[in-house]
């Protein structure tokens, strides 16, 4: 099957753009893991909640022209929601000092995911909604690109820059980086590691919510919309290595590009499968760590 160079370029550009949002998803997963050593399986539900907040705020208050104001609203409200969820449901697993507490916390997030999906399904029904988009189609050279996709990836880049700033340039970021290196270490420096967990969890799920908000008009809004994007997030994390921020970036771009190439060269119908093929190959080559991951739990 032959593809024109122009079409291929267009696919690759789309792949890069969606890759930025995979990075955002993966960063949320990997960031929570790097601080709390737990996997948050409810990431997709926070993505879903973010997309619903976007939909409600745009459709009820702002209108599609002012969609970009709804994105920080979605991010901040899910940040607060995440902090509350962490305090009420996750922290009790960490406070009692029992064995395998990160595993218990992980199980809690699975239950939370099912619960959140169920509640939203009861409340909103299974319908797909769209906040609508008034973004014009962009013309990049000879290539037409859907405006809401361009906007989503630019929004994703802004969120990544903001995340970088918070982690590298603020006091909270200093404490979070230290906690990622050694939980015991920050505790013996007198820093309250449970407070840091709460902030990290809030930040991580806020990243997912922002991805959901940015993609609301592209992938639509419905109770199960978090599944596919989150799966992509986990693919990226496995590819790049759990706990690795450079891994999340390289992995996000790689999955985005592989999907685009697969769609262009093989078939669009299997778009969601190509990433898995790449993941399988990397796992065969570097089964322990992915591309950049930390070597843990070799026992």
């Amino acid at each position, binding site marked *: 099957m032959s593809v024109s160079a122009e079409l291929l370029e267009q696919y690759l550009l789309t792949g890069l753009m969606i890759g930025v949002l995979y990075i955002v998803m993966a960063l949320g997963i990997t960031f929570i893991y790097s601080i709390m050593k737990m996997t948050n399986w409810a990431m997709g539900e926070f993505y879903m909640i973010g997309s619903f907040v976007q939909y409600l705020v745009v459709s009820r208050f702002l209108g599609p022209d002012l969609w970009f104001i709804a994105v920080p609203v979605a991010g901040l409200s899910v940040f607060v929601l995440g902090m509350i969820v962490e305090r009420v449901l996750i922290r009790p697993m960490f406070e009692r000092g029992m064995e395998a507490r990160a595993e218990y916390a992980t199980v809690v997030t699975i239950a939370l995911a099912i619960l959140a999906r169920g509640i939203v399904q009861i409340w909103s029904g299974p319908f797909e909604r769209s906040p609508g988009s008034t973004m014009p189609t962009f013309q990049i050279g000879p290539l037409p690109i859907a405006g809401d996709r361009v906007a989503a990836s630019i929004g994703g880049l802004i969120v990544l820059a903001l995340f970088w700033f918070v982690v590298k340039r603020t*006091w909270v970021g*200093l404490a979070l980086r*230290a906690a990622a290196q*050694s939980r015991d270490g920050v505790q*013996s420096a007198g*820093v309250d590691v449970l407070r840091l967990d709460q902030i990290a969890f809030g930040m991580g799920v806020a990243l997912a919510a922002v991805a959901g908000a940015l993609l609301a008009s592209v992938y639509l809004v419905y109770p199960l919309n978090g599944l596919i994007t989150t799966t992509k997030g986990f693919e990226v994390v496995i590819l790049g290595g759990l706990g690795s921020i450079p891994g999340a970036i390289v992995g996000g771009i790689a999955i985005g590009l592989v999907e685009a190439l697969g769609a262009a060269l093989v078939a669009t119908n299997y778009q969601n499968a190509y990433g898995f093929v790449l993941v399988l190959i990397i796992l065969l080559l570097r089964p322990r760590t992915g591309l950049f991951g930390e070597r843990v739990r070799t026992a």
Partner: protein
Amino acid sequence: MFAPPSAGPSVPLLEAVDVSRAFGGVRANQGITLRLERGEIRGLIGPNGAGKTTLTNVLSGIYPPQSGDVRLDGASLVGLTPMQISRRGLLRTFQTPKLFGSMTVEDNLLLPALARSPLLGRSHQRRARERAEELLELTRLGRLRRLTARSLSGGEQALLQVATGFMVDDLRCYLLDEPFAGINPVLKERIIELIRHENRTHGTTFLVISHEMATVRQLCARVSVLAEGRLLTEGTMDEISADPAVISAYLGKGGA
């Protein structure tokens, strides 16, 4: 904020009363009573296995004592977590530096300023930065500030480790576990200078565990000696080094 009101000058700053701690059959600390006066730099010596590190762990809350009491300024610390104890102003270092290897020297210093809350007010931020500058100057680590802690020499790491404790606002009592072990004389001198400076300017009380007799003699007016889990004796370094019980503890029973 967390400190109880001072119980008055007659109460020692840090007090271990009849403290015991065993691990299985090993009785690491047996009925140890130790009192540190305000503003004192006390030495703690003893042969290997005498129970020095266990005592430090009990004092700093890593293990609770199985019997006896630990009091800071008259208030019992038993049952508090190490973090709660450090918030009351009792801090400790570990034999191997617990620095954040991939973070810079400066970040390592700033971190303990976040001990109260990860969200600092402006004035607190400014004070922390000023204090970090002062410590970078005192330790002469200023020119290494942007390097990662991992890239420092062992001695520089030990110096930085001691300095991080002084970032805690209301540090009252600082337990230093072997701060001089295996460190070159120049850096050893800098650590001593730093301890003396903080003792003089902030009235910080120290308990210094060390094997280096010459350094202990130089730094500490009074020294406590542990042997086989018990407090053997206390006194000036001169008194202690003349004590036959101490000599036999170091040389082994029947050795002297």
